[in-house]
């Protein structure tokens, strides 16, 4: 009799299709991992196509890498890893049932994620001014410095200073900068924009979900016993982070012959 009562109580705490919280949690975990498997295939096509084309046009793709701001990409890698750390802390706070901390860490994750998107946007702006966006605007000859505007000029000055004072390879830098762009570089830039844009879309969706999670936490939806949504979202956010960890070297760092 009492066993039956316990079953009834544990069933009343979960959606009606589940027996208890354990089954609910296992189901959502498996569901999330299955979804991430889908995502791996989704990004996998992009990575596979990129690899095939890179193999086919090694010079054009190397020249394309040279046109990307590796230090902005590197900075963004650090930024994203930091946001993943905050996400991990939010999940930890959720396991302890501390709603205040969940909200604070999620807000911090949103903020740092926003910083990533801002830096990414700056990169897009630079590439736009340098006529690297595929389409009618794309130019085979790199534009002169005075045509690219103040913002891009500031980055150029920084790069020049960095190469002359820190790396001491300004000759090579100047040489590589003015190399003509092979026509197929447009293909590289196309993949760069598609892959980073789809990645950024995942981040924007993630930020939207985090806002919902914050509202839920404010309403007291989570406790030490039930915090599946935070934990599952954590898996998603780390996945988006890992995709970037592969994107960054593939796009920015493979630049030496």
């Amino acid at each position: 009799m009492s066993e039956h009562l316990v079953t009834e109580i544990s069933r009343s705490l979960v959606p009606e299709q589940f027996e208890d919280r354990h089954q609910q949690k296992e189901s959502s975990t498996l569901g999330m991992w299955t979804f991430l498997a889908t995502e791996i295939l989704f990004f996998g096509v992009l990575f596979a196509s990129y690899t095939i084309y890179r193999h086919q046009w090694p010079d054009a793709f190397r020249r394309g890498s040279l046109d990307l701001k590796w230090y902005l990409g590197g900075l963004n890698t650090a930024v994203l890893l930091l946001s993943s750390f905050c996400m991990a802390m939010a999940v930890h706070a959720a396991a302890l049932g501390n709603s205040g901390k969940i909200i604070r860490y999620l807000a911090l994750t949103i903020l740092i994620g926003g910083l990533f998107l801002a830096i990414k946007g700056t990169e897009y702006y630079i590439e736009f001014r340098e006529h690297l966006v595929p389409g009618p605007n794309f130019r085979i000859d790199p534009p002169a410095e005075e045509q690219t505007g103040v913002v891009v000029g500031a980055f150029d000055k920084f790069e020049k200073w960095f190469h002359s004072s820190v790396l001491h390879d300004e000759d090579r830098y100047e040489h590589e900068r003015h190399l003509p762009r092979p026509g197929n570089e447009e293909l590289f830039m196309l993949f760069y924009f598609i892959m980073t844009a789809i990645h950024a879309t995942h981040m924007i969706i993630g930020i939207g979900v985090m806002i919902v999670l914050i509202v839920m936490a404010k309403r007291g939806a989570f406790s030490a016993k039930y915090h599946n949504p935070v934990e599952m979202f954590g898996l998603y956010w780390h996945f988006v982070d890992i995709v970037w960890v592969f994107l960054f070297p593939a796009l920015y760092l493979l630049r030496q012959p």
Partner: protein
Amino acid sequence: MTAVTYIPDYAPPETYLNASHTIRSWLLTKDHKRIGILYMISITIMFMVAAGAAALIRINLLSPTGLLPQPLDYNKAFTVHGVLMVWWFLVPSVPTVLGNFLIPLMIGARDLAFPRLNLASWYLFVASAILVLGVVLFGGVDTGWTFYSPYSSLFSNTHVTLTIVAIFINGFSSILTGLNFIVTIHKMRAPGMTWFRMPLFCWSMYATSVIFVLATPVLAITLVLLAIERLLRIGIFDAALGGDPVLFQHLFWFYSHPVVYIQILPTFGVASEVVTCFARKRPFGYAAIAFSSLAIALIGFLVWAHHMFDAGISPYSGIVFSFLSFAVAVPTAIKIFSWTFTLHKGSIALETPMLYILGFMGLFTIGGLTGVMLATLGLDMHMHDTYFVVAHFHYVMVGGAVMGYMAGIHFWWPKMTGKMFNEFWGKIAAAITFIGFNLTFFPQYVMGYLGMPRRYYSYPPEFQVYHVLSTAGASILAFGYLLPLVYLLWSLKYGRDAGPNPYRSMSLEWQTESPPPTENFEHTPIISEPPYAYDLQLPMGSSAAMKLVEA
């Protein structure tokens, strides 16, 4: 005057159908059974539109010069037929209707793991269906269902982008359904329902779901790339920019060959249920049937380039893909042999679902064996893009998948509605479908072998006799499909009550009421026997397969 009130001496049992009656309660339902019914209605509508396009194709080909006003109209007809049949009927057919309805019942669960996600899948499906019907209404699309670049991206002037968006949304509906099934089968089984006590239908749905989840995203992102190429006029697959049109074909078939198994594996599941029930025997080789489903799903991912033997791929990879395509015939043959041995010395009852399945076994075997012919590298060079290929995949898709769907609908109709359909008309419809189907598609084998290419608006007059035979068969086939629509709907009002288990099946889904109550089982069932224990079956009605928990 005193009011006379009629008080029934019993209250009808509450079922998922009469639990509530408002339209709102249907549109916001989270009950897997109701969502299954919603899917059934939606895909039936889509089937009829797609069949209408097929009718246009067959009418056009009555004359060697073509009867439709322009060749472009013909191109649109076969594209709409292919696109709608593949994504809006064949792919969702058995999984979303029967899978949704039956998986929780078969494993003793109250619902799928994520009921709200399940409803969201249906809404995504409906949104994509409305979009693609819009495409059909406002001009259509003419690229063929394969959307080969650069034709689809740089040259076609029809609604390619909108169609792609519709398929993309439809794909997410499939992915979410597959995800739901995988989690449900892993985590929601009733106590004692081990993997090897599951009905074989669940195994085939599991294999199907794996393909849903792993293949569909590949199509989704490939179509995104195609849409970008089309909208920006920048060639990702355009050779002028260094892109590779063959890469598109690789990516497309990486999805679209496994999708063939999405269409046929569920039917295998239906066949396993129907054959065991109407032969009253345990299946011959339960584990062999279960694992061959997984083997087909796995090997099915490794055979895609047999669609591209003449696309300029390396002959060495052609040899490998040809060999792997032969290999997929092995687990498929295991199934056919298993069912045949299950029938051997069984006490076979030739009821309507069984007739459909027997038809399926014959037609699918023909379709499968001609598939092995086409997988032969040298032979395929000769027969590629002829009507031989068209006949082959229609024997597999229509003779296989649609016959299986019809068998499943008839078999579980009493469970879904609580009513029996008219058995006489059911048998007539099964026979008409079988005859009409063969008359439609067997002549296509012959003319394909003689060299009639597919997708041609006009053709040399010596092929006319085959086309006329085929069109005649198609009209008989149409009758075979319309007939069930009439007598099944008729049965809803006039059919006799089915009772919980009219076919005396041993599967768990038959051990509850027909139609089932909203919560499926009064008490969570505890399973203590392997499935299909027909040799242990006691006379009429009782079942040794299931014992109920005493509360």
